[in-house]
């Protein structure tokens, strides 16, 4: 028996679209890796500084934007100072609307409660320089304001001033932060990665180099659950669950077919 692959695509598409209209509200329990990032930020105060680096482009934004959204909102709600950077040229454009919306909602001011530093060319060189001299690495913020004029950066300039760095990335950019921020300067580092990369990050969590990780849309949904704000990722998880059920059924049916054909061949 041969099923046209387009029939399978259609079934998967339906399994993913229908749950948006008929949600069942399946629970999204938080895993240890996500909880540890959440708990770490929960333990910070308004004197602490978190760098959230939006190291991604539009191709992975459905997975990573909800992570950025949840983590940024959590920091603003806690009153923790946030510096938003990016190692990918398209990153700032993607996160700017989220920053605006969240800042408006929590009544936070750019340059005082958070700073949007944007993108600088240089990849690992940017990280190395940020550890030594932030204002030299970013002479101006995303909007062209001189960073030495930003109130939030009055007492912040190098690795001693960073309480957590989080790289949200669809590539191996998280390694740069481990190599050039965590290892030489012992700055605590966490990451939010696409589900494709999540399995690669576990060894670095087990070794204690990362304090935690948000893996794929599921990681973002877990974080949303922890902060009590069901937003983009939680909406998507319902569709994700049903698609997984459909795929598992396909795998079972495929294997039953495979075994049955094998038996028939042996019998003939």
């Amino acid at each position: 028996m041969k099923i046209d692959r387009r029939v399978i695509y259609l079934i998967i598409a339906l399994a993913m679209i229908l749950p948006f209209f008929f949600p069942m509200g399946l629970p999204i329990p938080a895993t240890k890796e996500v909880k540890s990032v959440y708990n770490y930020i929960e333990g910070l105060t308004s004197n602490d500084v978190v760098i959230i680096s939006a190291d991604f482009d539009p191709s992975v934004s459905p997975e990573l934007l909800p992570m950025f959204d949840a983590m940024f909102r959590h920091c603003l709600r806690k009153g923790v100072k946030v510096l938003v950077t990016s190692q990918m040229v398209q990153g700032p454009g993607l996160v700017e609307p989220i920053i605006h919306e969240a800042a408006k909602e929590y009544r936070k001011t750019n340059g005082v409660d958070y700073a949007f530093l944007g993108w600088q060319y240089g990849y690992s060189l940017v990280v190395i320089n940020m550890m030594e001299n932030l204002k030299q690495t970013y002479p101006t913020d995303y909007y062209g304001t001189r960073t030495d004029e930003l109130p939030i950066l009055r007492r912040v300039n190098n690795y001693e001033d960073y309480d957590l760095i989080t790289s949200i990335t669809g590539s191996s950019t998280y390694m740069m932060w481990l190599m050039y921020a965590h290892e030489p300067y012992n700055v605590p580092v966490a990451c939010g990665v696409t589900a494709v990369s999540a399995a690669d990050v576990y060894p670095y969590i087990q070794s204690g180099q990362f304090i935690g990780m948000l893996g794929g849309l599921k990681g973002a949904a877990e974080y949303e659950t922890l902060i009590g704000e069901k937003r983009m990722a939680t909406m998507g998880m319902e569709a994700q669950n049903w698609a997984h059920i459909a795929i598992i059924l396909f795998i079972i049916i495929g294997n039953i077919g495979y075994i049955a054909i094998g038996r028939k061949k042996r019998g003939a």
Partner: protein
Amino acid sequence: MHITSNPWIWIGVFFTFSVLSFLYKDNPFYKLAEHVTVGVSIGYFIVIWWTNTVYPRFIIPVFENHHFILIIPAILGLMMVLRIVPKWSWLSRYAICFTVGGGAGMGIPRSMQTSVLRQLQATMLPLNLSTTAGINNIIIFIGVLAVLIYFFFSKEHKGVFGGAAKLGIWFLMVGFGATFGYTVMARLSLFIGRVLFVLQDFLGIKLAG
């Protein structure tokens, strides 16, 4: 339901369906979307690179503040571009030497520390059967050893050594299985992103969180 009048969202929806049409079969709409994506990405990068890097970090410092030292890296950069001129392409090797030398010097010690030494340290764990953590440590220890044995090709995989190598394959398969599962999840998430875009941004349907 309230369909948006924002033309940018209409364009986004057009390209979303153009890309998805590839699932049916290859067609000119898919090709158009593919080429536009590449063109826009490169164009965007060039504009941002000029306004964020070249203009404020080279043009202004050199021509207004007279920091002429910056001309040296600029010349190295130009030498790199000379690869496209066959007669002068040899000059690009000097710039590449500088980049490779600097990159290796910065990267090798840090990579060793981050990915080798710290990972080795993470396998040196207390082994005991009385706690869950202890049992996990035993599995990690056996797994690392078995996989390393599998990748040791100077001795034939026979007897006890062969058995350990086979165990290594099992550990690798579990790893690949986890990666595959996560990959499926990632691909579905991308589709979910597009569905949400069409339903919320384009059709204006309010979805419950």
